């Protein structure tokens, strides 16, 4: 009944065991991932700078050996967040599916709930995209990458992005993934508040609208780059 001192590891396990605890973990990791998505987009928009070297200078800054510790710390935290987010979502999905072993012959859905009902599909496709994206522009396993400098390693981001997006298959997959990310965030960015218990009849509808607008802006920002390359607006 009371807040007796319990082993913190035991407490964390008990917290995570409960579905509401898992949802809270998804909400917190979701916020971290959203923060990354926005930061990443703002970084990428530098490709529109009048000076094509602008984005390469940004890349050189990130790759500067002096920044290696914060860079790897952020990568580590993001990786942990993705793993927790996916693990919790899959565990909840399996439990929730088991909760209705016999389905309906006919089932109607509230149309507005489309994004919410498809989180478990938009999420993994975005996840697969993240792997592809890292292989494409970080590792260089999809197309050979151009470097400005070997040591310290400085990629020629401007050229790599444009050469990559001149391939319609690559551009198409990026755009598809960004539309699914938009759906995922359309629901996720208000759902995370509900999951941790924040809801108010006056503010929640505004929050939903804000989440929708932000999700669409993120999608427009991200999709604009492959579209601009294919349209020839960005070129070498």
């Amino acid at each position: 009944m009371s807040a007796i001192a319990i082993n913190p590891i035991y407490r964390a396990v008990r917290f995570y065991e409960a579905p509401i605890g898992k949802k809270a973990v998804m909400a917190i990791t979701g916020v971290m991932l959203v923060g990354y998505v926005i930061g990443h987009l703002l970084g990428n928009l530098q490709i529109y700078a009048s000076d094509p070297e602008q984005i390469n200078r940004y890349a050189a800054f990130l790759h500067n050996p002096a920044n290696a510790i914060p860079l790897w710390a952020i990568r580590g935290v993001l990786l942990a967040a993705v793993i927790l987010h996916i693990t919790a979502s899959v565990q909840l999905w399996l439990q929730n599916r088991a909760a209705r072993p016999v389905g309906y012959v006919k089932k109607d859905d509230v149309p507005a709930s489309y994004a919410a009902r498809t989180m478990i599909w938009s999420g993994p496709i975005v996840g697969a995209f993240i792997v592809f994206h890292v292989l494409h522009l970080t590792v260089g396993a999809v197309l050979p990458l151009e470097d400005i400098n070997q040591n310290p390693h400085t990629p020629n981001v401007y050229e790599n992005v444009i050469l990559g997006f001149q391939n319609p298959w690559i551009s198409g997959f990026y755009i598809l993934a960004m539309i699914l990310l938009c759906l995922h965030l359309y629901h996720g960015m208000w759902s995370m508040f509900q999951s941790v218990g924040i809801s108010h009849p006056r503010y929640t509808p505004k929050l939903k609208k804000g989440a929708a607008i932000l999700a669409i802006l993120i999608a427009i920002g991200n999709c604009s780059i492959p579209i601009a390359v294919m349209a020839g607006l960005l070129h070498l």
Partner: protein
Amino acid sequence: MRIILHIWRQRSAGEKGRMVRYEVPNVSEHMSFLEMLDVLNEDLTMRGEEPVAFDHDCREGICGMCGAMVNGIAHGPLPGTTLCQLHMRHFKDGDELYLEPWRARAFPVVKDLVVDRSAFDRIIAAGGFIAVATGSAPDGNAIPVPKDDAEKSMDAAACIGCGACVAMCPNASASLFMGAKMAHLGLLPQGQPERERRAVAMVAQANRELFGSCTNIGECEAVCPKDIKLEVIARMNRDFLRAKWAGEEGVAGD
């Protein structure tokens, strides 16, 4: 008017069921949905067939006994209405309606459209109460309750425990039901002492009953005959998370 029904027929919990087609030729628009089923059942009885089993009691939308999926919507297409209060004037001549029981692992089918909802009773028994010594009713204004809280609590107390939220939820989650009970009790001064213990105990019981969990989809809110809002689920999450944060273990080690 003539209504064509496809109804889930299942003789008992253990047996396999199937959809069976029926025609009800003389449906009056003034009939309630259940009255139409009464007419069908009379006809089936006359023909020596087994009537369709369905739950009902008050037939005025307050007891929570009735309910079925009508074309995939819990309690049928009219929002904010129980099946017993749904009238046939909302349908047209020749409409084909699929009637199915609530589907959830925690709500096993007993017969035809009747399901066993005792899992809800066990959730209430786990924590959906206020453990105070009862006696004669206290004076009306002895315990002041802010107007806003009283209103919200009354809104939540409108839940009749019909199970439509579980039936409609893609996850078969009982969150709207539990949230309603927790908001109903937890908004009042009398409900405060057990507020966190209640959240932990009810949620733990729902997990034991194998209900799913909430992913904030909102189908429950759309079909709730009493218009209970998703906000009560956020409130439940808040109570639960706060309790867990404080190391609240609920009863029986949950």
